[in-house]
C-alpha cells in the first residue's frame, strides 16, 4: 500500500529529547543546531526551518580582553561642547564658535550678546559681564533692547533657537527708569544668578540688584535687598561680579569711583536671607572678578587713586581679606585684575593697566605667589583699550578674550593656552563674553 511522508512544518515543534525516538511528531527534531524559525516569509516563515542569522562584529577593534559584561544605555550619551565667543557689531555675525578650540566659525543664529553701548551708562565699569551655561543651553544678556528705553533681556540659546526668555523689570532701587544692563551671570546652586545695574544712586552708592532665574519655573526673583543709596538699600555700589562660596552668594560691588579703600563684597544665603551681609568694605579698589580657588575666595580689584589693582584672598578660616599681589602698574590707569579663572590646578587672571601699559595673563598655583604666564602686550599685541573679557576653560585648554577697542572694530583677540603654551588664536570683533554650550545627542 503506498503512502507518503509529507512534512511542511519542519522543526515547528522544536527539539524533543524526552520522547522515545519512535514517538517524535513529524514536526519535532532531535537536534536543531544553528536552526531557527523566522516569522518572516521573506527570510523563512513560520513552519519553515531556517539557518540562524549571523553574528556580525560590532566593534572593529577588539577590546583588551574577554567581554565580561555590558549594558546598553538608551540615552543621549554624546556630549558635544561648543565654545562661543560673543562678537560686536562689525557685521551680521553674532558669535564665533569652535568645537575643537582651534577652528573658528562665524555664526549669526544666536542673537547678539549685550554690546558696548549697553554699558555706557555704567561708565564702562569693569563688571565681569559673563554669560552662563546651564544644562544643555546657555543664557546671556541680550542686545536687542534700546538702552534707557527698554528692559534688558535674557536670551537662551540651545544650539538651535535663540529665545528671549525674560526681561529685567524696573527695580525698586532705580529712579523708575529701566535697568541699564546685566553686569554678570553665574550658574550655582542649581540656578542662574545675575547682577543688574539700575539707574539712580550717587557714586559710589549706585543702584542695582542681584536676581535669580529658575529655569524650571521661569521665575525671576530678587535676591535679598537692592543696592543703592535709598532707604533699606545696600551701600557700596552696584553688583558687578558674582561667586558662590561656602553655601552663600558673594557679590562684588562697583561704585564707579576711584576712592581708595572702599571696595565692597557682600554675601547672603539666597533662599534665606532678606538682606546682604557686608563681608568686606575696605578693599583698595572695587571688585571686578571673583573665583573660588583651593577653598578660598579670591577677588580681583580695580586700581584706586592711590593703589594699584590687587588680587585679594579671603581666607575661609578667618573670613579675613588679604592682598596677595598688587599690580606694578600702580594707581589709576583703569588698572584691574580681570577674569579670575581656575584652570589646571592654578588660578589665572588678566592684569591690565592702560597707561603703562600692562596686559599680562598672570597665574598662581597657591594663590600667594603670582607670576606672569603671558606678557600679552609684549608678545601678542595687547594694548590699552583692548580690555580683558572672559576667561574660560574648554577642551583642556584655557582661553582669554580681549575685547575690541570699539563695538565695530575687529582688533579684539583670543589667547589660547594649550599644551602649556600661549598663542593668539584669532583676531576679530570680540565683545568679551565666552561660554560653553553642551549639547547631548
Amino acid at each position, binding site marked *: 500500500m503506498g503512502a507518503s511522508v509529507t512534512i511542511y512544518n519542519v522543526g515547528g515543534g522544536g527539539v524533543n529529547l524526552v520522547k522515545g525516538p519512535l514517538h517524535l511528531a513529524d514536526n519535532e527534531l532531535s537536534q536543531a543546531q544553528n536552526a531557527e524559525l523566522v516569522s518572516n516569509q521573506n527570510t523563512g516563515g513560520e513552519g519553515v526551518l531556517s539557518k540562524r542569522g549571523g553574528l556580525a562584529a560590532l566593534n572593529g577593534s577588539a577590546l583588551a580582553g574577554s567581554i565580561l559584561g555590558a549594558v546598553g544605555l538608551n540615552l543621549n*550619551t554624546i556630549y558635544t561642547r561648543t565654545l562661543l565667543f560673543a562678537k560686536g557689531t562689525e557685521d551680521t555675525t553674532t558669535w564665533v564658535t569652535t568645537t575643537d578650540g582651534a577652528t573658528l566659525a562665524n555664526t549669526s543664529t544666536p542673537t547678539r550678546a549685550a554690546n558696548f553701548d549697553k554699558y555706557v551708562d555704567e561708565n564702562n565699569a569693569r563688571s565681569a559681564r559673563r554669560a552662563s551655561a546651564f544644562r544643555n543651553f546657555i543664557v546671556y544678556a541680550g542686545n536687542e533692547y534700546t538702552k534707557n528705553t527698554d528692559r534688558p533681556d535674557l536670551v537662551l540659546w540651545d544650539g538651535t533657537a535663540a529665545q528671549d526668555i525674560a526681561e529685567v523689570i524696573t527695580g525698586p532701587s532705580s529712579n523708575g527708569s529701566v535697568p541699564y544692563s546685566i553686569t554678570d551671570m553665574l550658574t550655582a546652586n542649581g540656578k542662574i544668578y545675575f547682577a543688574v545695574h539700575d539707574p539712580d544712586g550717587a557714586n559710589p552708592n549706585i543702584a542695582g540688584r542681584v536676581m535669580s532665574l529658575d529655569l524650571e519655573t521661569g521665575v525671576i526673583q530678587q535676591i535679598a535687598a537692592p543696592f543703592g543709596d535709598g532707604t533699606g538699600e545696600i551701600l557700596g555700589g552696584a553688583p558687578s561680579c558674582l561667586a558662590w562660596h561656602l553655601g552663600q552668594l558673594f557679590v562684588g560691588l562697583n561704585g564707579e569711583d576711584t576712592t581708595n579703600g572702599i571696595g565692597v563684597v557682600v554675601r547672603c544665603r539666597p533662599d534665606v536671607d532678606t538682606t546682604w551681609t557686608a563681608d568686606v568694605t575696605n578693599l583698595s579698589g572695587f571688585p571686578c572678578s571673583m573665583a573660588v580657588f583651593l577653598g578660598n575666595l579670591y577677588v580681583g580689584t580695580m586700581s584706586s587713586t592711590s593703589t594699584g589693582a590687587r588680587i585679594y584672598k579671603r581666607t575661609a578660616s578667618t573670613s579675613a581679606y588679604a592682598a596677595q599681589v598688587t599690580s606694578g602698574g600702580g594707581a589709576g590707569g583703569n588698572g584691574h585684575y580681570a577674569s579670575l579663572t581656575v584652570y589646571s590646578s592654578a588660578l589665572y587672571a588678566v592684569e591690565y593697566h592702560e597707561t603703562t601699559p600692562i596686559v599680562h595673563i598672570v597665574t598662581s598655583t597657591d594663590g600667594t605667589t603670582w607670576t606672569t604666564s603671558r606678557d600679552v602686550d609684549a608678545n601678542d599685541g595687547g594694548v590699552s583699550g583692548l580690555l580683558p573679557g572672559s576667561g574660560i576653560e574648554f577642551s583642556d585648554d584655557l582661553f582669554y578674550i580681549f575685547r575690541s577697542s570699539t563695538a565695530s572694530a575687529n582688533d579684539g583677540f583670543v589667547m589660547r593656552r594649550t599644551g602649556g603654551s600661549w598663542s593668539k588664536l584669532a583676531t576679530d570683533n570680540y565683545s568679551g563674553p565666552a561660554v560653553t554650550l553642551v549639547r547631548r545627542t
Partner: protein
Amino acid sequence: MPHLFTQGGSSLYKMNLSDGTTETLTLPSGVTLSTTNKPRFAVLNQWVVMVNSPTRNLVIDPEGTVRPLVPKAPTHPPLAAAGSSTGLTGAYLYKASFIVTNSDGELLLESPLSPSSISLTAANTDISLSDVPLSLDTISSRRLYRTVAFGSAYFHLMDLEGNIETATLDATTDAKLKTLPVQPSLSSPPGTLPGIRFKNIIEWKSRLWAVADDPTLIDTVYISDTNKVYAWNNTVIAYPTGMDSQGIIAFAKRKNQLGLLKRDGVWQISGSSSSTGISVANITVSQIAFGKTGCVAPDSVVAINDRVFWLGKDGVYEWSGDSVRSVTNDTVAPWFQSDTYFNRSRFSSAFGRYNELRDSYDLHLANVGDTTENRWVSLSLKTGGWYGPHLTSAFTPTHAGHCIDTNGLPITFVGGSDGVIYTGNSANYRDGAATAIDFDVYGPWHGGDAPDIEHFWGELSMLSRVETAGTLTVTPTVGRLDSSAGAAISHTLTLGRERLRRLGTGALCRLRLRHNTVNQGVSVFGYEVPFSELGRR
C-alpha cells in the same frame, strides 16, 4: 545616541553603537576591575551603576565619567572651637560629608556623614572649624552640617569647596539654618570600601536593589532611595537566612513584583507604588516557589515583558502570572538533567539573552567536556519550541545581552573572548568576518505508523526557499535506530523544489539536513518521501 558600556578584560569601555568605536573610561583612583567576577549593571535616573567586578561599586554618568557609587565617609568630624568674633550662643554639634556636584551646582553624590563633633558651647562667639576632613575620593566639596543651639538634628550649614582647605568660620544663626535641608540619612552599603561588594543589582520602581557577597548578608537586599544612586537607607531580608552558601543569586524584575532568586526557591517583593516610586514601608517579601524552581546562574535571568526566565538546577524556569514552571521538562530535559550535552558543573556560569527579533530566550552553556560557554540553546517564546544546541566557530562567547541600536531598534548581542561584541540576526549568514554557520538538523524517525514493518522509501522531494547558490546536504538513515547513515544527497538550493533519489529499504527513515557554507542561508519548507510497506520480517 545609545551606547554600550562594557567591560573587556580589566578595562571599562563606552562603545558607540552606530560605528563600534570605543572609548576607554578612566576608573577612579585605586579601583580595579576583576576578570573573574563578572560585572553587573543597573540603570537609574540616567546613571549606570556597576558592581561585582569593580573593587568598589561604581557609577557612570551618560558621558562616561566614572565615580565611586558612594564616596567614602569622613572618618572624623570638624574640630570646633570658639572664635574671636561674635554670633552664636549655645551648644553646637557638627558633622561633615563629601559631596560631588555638577557644573550647575546640583548634588550628584554624597557620602555618609562623619561622626559628630564634640559639643561646643559658644557664648556669643563665632565658631572656628578646623580639621575639616579631606576625602581620598575625587569630590567637589565638603558639606558641613550643624545643629541649632542645644539641638540634636543636623541642618545643612555650608559647602567648603574643593578638597584642600580644612578650616572655616561659622557665625550662621539658627534662624538661617532652619529653612535649609535637614541632614540626609546616608549609609555606606557593601562595596563602598574594598573587601565585600555588591554581587548583583537591578533597578525596579525607580530604586536600586542589590545584594552583597558578604556571607552573613547574602539574604539581605539593600534598597536605594528613589532616584538616588548614592543613598542606601533600607534593607529587606528573604527569610529564612543562611540556608546555603549563595543566598540570593539574582533578581527577577516584573511589572509589579521583584523576584529574589535563591538556589532553592523564589521570593517576591511586592508593594504599592506611585508616580514617585514604591514605598519601602509598604512592601512585603514572601516565598512563592520552593525547591528546584530556584536559580543557579545569576546571568541566566532574562526578563521579557512580564515574564522572567532563568536556569535552575534541572532546567529552565519561567515565572509569569502567579506561577513558576519548568519550560524544559516536557521537551529538552536531558539537556539539563544528563551529562550528555552540557557541562553541568558550569551551570553557574551560564548566561542568557533575549533575541527580540526572533522572540526567543537564548541560554549560553558549556558543551560537555568544555570549560567555556561555547554552546547556546534557544526557546521560541512564540511556539514554546527549543532549538539548538547552537555553536559558532568564530569565537568563544563570554557574555550576552540585548539593547537598542542608534535607531531605537532592538538588537541582541554576544561578547566574545576575543574582545569583540557581535550582534545577532545578520542576514549575511556568517559569524564574524568569514566563518560559516554550521546548520545541522536531525529530523524525526519516520515509520509510517508501523515501525515494525519494513518499508520501501521512495524518491525524496525537497522544497526549500530559492537561494542564489548553494547545496543542502541531506543524509538519510534507513533501517533501524542503530543503522548507519546512507550516502549523502545534495539538494540544490537554487531550484526551490528538487526530486532526489530513492532512499532505500528499511523499517525506519530519517533525514539529517546540513549546510555549512559561509554567506549562504537555508530555509527548508518541507519534504516528501513516498513509501510502501514491504512486510514484516
